[in-house]
Structure formats: C-alpha cells, structure tokens
C-alpha cells in the first residue's frame, strides 16, 4: 500500500473505524433486507468503501460532498448518525426528509452532504453549481462529487465537467470505477482506455488510483482538494475498484458475472488490506481490533433498534415540503 503522508496513528485508526462501520452497515442492511425488514432496497458498496473514507477524511466541516448511490462511507465520515441512516432505510419518520426520502440519496445541510439523485449522473451538474456558489462567495470551500463509470457516459458528466473546467470551479470529481454499471461491464459501455484521461478534454488534470488502497485515494483526493481550494480548478479522480455484491439486493452477486473475477477482487478487499497494513505498522493489534469490532457492532445494533422502534411518518408528512414557505422578502415590494 502507498504511504499515508501526514496521517497520525489516531487518523489511521479513525479511518479504519469508518471503513469497518461502513462495511458492517452494508452487510447488516443486506441481512435485514433478506429478512424482509427493510423498506429500502440496498445497493451495497462492499469493496468500495475505501473511496468514500479516503476521499472524505480530512475535509473541512464547511466542504460539501455529493455521494453516489455507492458512497455509503461518505455519509459516515461526514457524521450522519448511523441511527438516522438506518431509520431512512426503514422509511421511518426519524430517517431522511421526515421519511419522505431513502437513505442513499439523503442530504444533510449541516454536515455538508448534498441531496443525491436517482437520475444517475445528474448530480454532476448540481455539484458544479454548488462549487460555483462557493466561488462567487469567495469561500475557500470544496465540493466532492462521487459517481460511477456508468454515470460517466451520461451527457451530464460532459456538461458538468466542461462547465466546471471553464470556470475553474472548486470541485473534485471522484469517479468510482467499479467495473460495472448494473449488469453491464465497463468493456461493454466504454471503448476508451481509462476515464481519467477524459479530463484533458475539459482542461484539468485526471488522476487514476487504486480505489481499494485507502491511502492512495486519500493522498490523491487531498492534493485535488488543495488544488481546488487554492483556485486551480477541478480534478477528475478515477478510483479503480470493484463491486463485490450484486448491483442491488435483487441481483445475486453472480448475476452476469464470472465468479473468478469476483474472487480475484476479494483478495484486494480494502478492509482486510487496511487492517493488515495497520497491524504491520503496529497501529492495531488483535485486542484493539476486537474492541473496534465490538464497538462498531454495538453501534449498528443500536441503530437497528432505533430504526425499528421509530414511528413511520404521519400521513401529513406527504404534503410537507412540496414548496418552501414564502419568505417575507417576497412581500418586500408593494403589491400591485
């Protein structure tokens, strides 16, 4: 694994915990789904968690992220409580948007998480717009926008990146290339060699890293963030990874796939990989590992209990928030 620059042991352990928490959450919701206890269909990010943790760790509180359907880790690193995420998967009032939204597109203004989209790729132009707001307000904030290889074939990828490039916006585009778009392998939807090189067509750098190497992701993301923060413009960061589960829990892992491919990638699973590295470095030992496991496990079970004990949204919730309340400013002028 690549180095871990300025990261202290405390950082490393914290990152490891986020990685583990994300994995534990994903595995648990897959179980809960199988038991018919969830409302939301899980789109598991198992195998890709290093991207969200590596890229979001070290961001400032006022920076913003716009996760893809596969960036569960980002919600955790940004601090959205496990309870709230779990309640969202149960469509409870204590979940997302009072129960009106699912967890995988949930936003959290206070924690700098922008609302995601079920329209794959559409978030890319929205992220550019958020970065535009920072630029216009002279705020040295950065937007991290996550999306997959499939999303990179949408027109909005092109328009969003070109727009960001032309205005040198403070945004980092994190492309989670997990080899598949639903049941279609990258080789069938992309004839190029890599996605990172597309950045040149928009006038900014593209970088390709091992998305399962949390340190490589962190390092590349940090320099892209610094670049953006200092006014040098966007970066396209292609993180090569692999989706270890099916597209969603309706699709068995093996759907349309050669299991040897899956097995090959299990070897590169970012979680055991980081754990081994931290043990090698003496940052973690069996006791510490077990303690973190217990701690994470308890947090998940607490969230499940919270979610299952939470009330469903009241029927009035359906009609809330269709429009934001008119501000007094509207009647600032005389009416005529």
């Amino acid at each position, binding site marked *: 694994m690549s180095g871990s620059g300025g990261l202290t042991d405390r950082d490393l352990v914290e990152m490891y915990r986020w990685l583990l928490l994300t994995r534990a959450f994903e595995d648990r919701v897959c179980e809960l789904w199988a038991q018919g206890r969830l*409302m*939301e*269909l899980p789109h598991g990010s198992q195998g890709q968690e290093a991207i969200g943790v590596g890229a979001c760790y070290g961001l400032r509180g006022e920076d913003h992220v716009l996760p893809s359907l596969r960036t569960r880790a980002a919600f955790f690193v940004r601090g959205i409580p496990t309870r709230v995420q779990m309640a969202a998967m149960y*469509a409870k009032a204590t979940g*997302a948007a009072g*129960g*009106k*939204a*699912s967890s995988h*597109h949930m936003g959290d203004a206070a924690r700098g998480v922008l609302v995601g*989209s*079920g*329209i*794959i*790729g*559409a978030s890319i132009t929205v992220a550019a717009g958020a970065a535009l707001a920072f630029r216009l307000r002279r705020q040295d904030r950065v937007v991290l926008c996550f999306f997959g290889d*499939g*999303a990179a*074939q*949408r*027109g*909005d990828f092109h328009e969003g990146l070109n727009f960001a490039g032309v205005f040198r916006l403070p945004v980092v585009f994190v492309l989670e290339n997990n080899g598949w*778009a*639903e*049941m*279609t392998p990258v080789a*069938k*939807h*992309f004839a190029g060699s890599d996605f990172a090189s597309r950045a040149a067509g928009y006038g900014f750098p593209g970088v390709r890293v091992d998305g399962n190497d949390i340190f490589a992701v962190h390092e590349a993301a940090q320099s892209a963030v610094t670049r953006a923060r200092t006014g040098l413009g966007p970066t396209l960061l292609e993180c090569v990874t692999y989706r270890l589960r099916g597209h969603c829990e309706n699709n068995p892992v093996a*759907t*349309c796939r050669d299991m040897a491919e899956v097995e090959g990638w299990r070897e590169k699973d970012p979680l055991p990989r980081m754990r081994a590295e931290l043990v090698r470095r003496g940052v973690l030992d069996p006791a510490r590992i077990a303690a973190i496991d217990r701690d994470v496990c308890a947090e998940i079970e607490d969230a499940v209990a919270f979610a299952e004990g939470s009330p*469903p*949204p009241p*029927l009035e*919730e*359906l*009609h809330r928030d*269709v429009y934001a309340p008119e501000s007094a400013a509207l009647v600032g002028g005389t009416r005529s």
Partner: protein
Amino acid sequence: MRELTCREAIREALREEMDRDGSVFVFGEDVADYGGVFKVTEGLLEEFGPERIFDTPLSESAIVGAAVGAAVMGMRPVVEVMFADFTTIAMDALVNHAAKMNYMSGGETPAPLVVRMAYGAGPRWGSHHTQSVEAWLANVPGLTIVMPSTPHDAKGLLKSAIRTPNPVVFLEHKLLYGKKGEVPEDDYVVPLGTANVAHPGDAVTVVATGLMVHRALDAARALRADGIDAEVIDLRSIQPLDEETILASVEKTGRIVIAHESPVRGGFGGEIAAVVAEKALGFLDAPVQRVGAPWTPVPFGQVLVDAYVPSEAAIIRAVRATLGSADERRNDG
C-alpha cells in the same frame, strides 16, 4: 384461454414482431444479457442474437436519439428506457426529433420507433423512479402515447405500436408486470386510439388509465353491491384519444369520474374533462370528478406511497359524489 402476465405478453409481442419483421430490433440498458431490469426482454438474446437485441451505455439521450436515426433509415427500433422518470433526459430526442421528423421531412422520413418505459409508484423506489409522465408528453403533436392495463392489451397494443410508422411512447406500469390475464394465441393487434369498455354500466362513467383501471374495476364491483352500475372505460392510449367511446358513455350515464395516477393538477384528466365539457355538457347531470395523486412529488416508503396513490376508496367517493350531487347543479345554476 391461456393466461399470461403483462411481462410475458409484452415479451411475446416483441418476439412475434421480431419474427415477422427483420427491421424490428431492441436495445437499451441491460435488456440483452440480463433481460431487462423488469425481465421483460428475458430470453430474446438467446432467440434472436446480439444484432437484434443488445445492451447500451448508460445514455438515455443517445438511446432514444439513436433510435430516431435508425428509424429514419427504415429500421423499427424498440428501445427500453428503464424508468419513465428518465423521460426528462430522453425528452429532446422524443419531442423535438422523433415527433417532428415526419413533419420536417415533408413525409419523407418518418421515425417508426417505440420507447418502452416503466412508470408508476411503488413504496421502495422514491421520487425519481415512480412518476407517471404521460401528461408531460400529451401536448406534443407527432407522438402516440399508449398505456396498457391488461396482458391482452399490452400485447395487442405493442404490436400496433411497432407496426405504426410513427413514434410511440409505450408506458408500462411496474405494478402490472406480474398481473395475469387471458391472451389469445393468434396474431391479433389492438388498434391505437380505441378505448375499451372494461365494465359496462349506466349510472356513472369512470375513465381510467393503467393501474387506475384496476382500481376503478374494484370500485365498480364494490358499487355494484350497492346497486350502482359504473361503466369503466380503459383509455388504452391517450394519443390518439378515443373521444367517441367517452362521449357515448357520458351521454348514457350523465356522470363522469376521471382517474389517473399522476397528480390531478395539470394531469391528462383535464383533457378528458374538457372534451366532455365541450361536447357533452348538456348530458352532464353532475359536476365532473377527477381522482389523481395529490400535488406532491412521489414519496418513499409504504405508508406515504399508499397515501399518495389514488385508491379504490377515492374512486368510490368520487362516484358517490357525482351521484349525490345529481340535482345540485341545477339548483345553484
């Protein structure tokens, strides 16, 4: 007669038309290897091979745009746009190109294509995979918009949609894919623009589309118990619109309830109400009633979605309202 699900009926229509006409072919996201996320096209790859059905990149605008190009060159593409909510990103190819190709070419190059899309609310999909989009496309000359509600019609209408030389938006309700119904074995078609009287009655006319047809039929059955004979009309296509069948029914019943899943305001029900208010006003014995979703995005979750989607009960309430108010209108007139 044998029974098929809507899913099987649509697949059978595709298979028969692909057999009949070598220029008919299918493409879209995950339609070939996987057989479509709703499994409608399952097995067609094995049967017809990779030149007749293939998977594409995640590019709805290119999917429909390429269908337009292939269609003007004489092919008969049938493309799948997984969720009708994605109409927003395929809209230009559909509205500004497919719909206007024949006109702008003076009739030289029509665009005979079919865009199949799954629409309709369900508890698990959220605001971006559940919308009923027909009203977004209903003011676009050149388009044909089909909304089947039974396996029989899904097959017969899709065959017509594939055979017509004009672009067709074929809307399939997600919750009806598994719905079973009788489907003849022979090669029949259901002509576009012909509504179906799904349940005869003379007390009140209920005009519905898609899933609402079934809610209306349930309502009609419940009302029959109270001696109220509701006539349920399944529009089957909203463009062309079968005005005759609607007007004939209203002239008989004097009352109309219009039910669709999309929100009432700005929905296609307004068009039906307008046609009646223009051409059969004198036959109306009670105010028109519309039943549709409330003015909100489609929410996530069972509880809120159940509250969102128009129910059998809502249709029954509307029917009773038209009957109750029989004299009102004369009075306050």
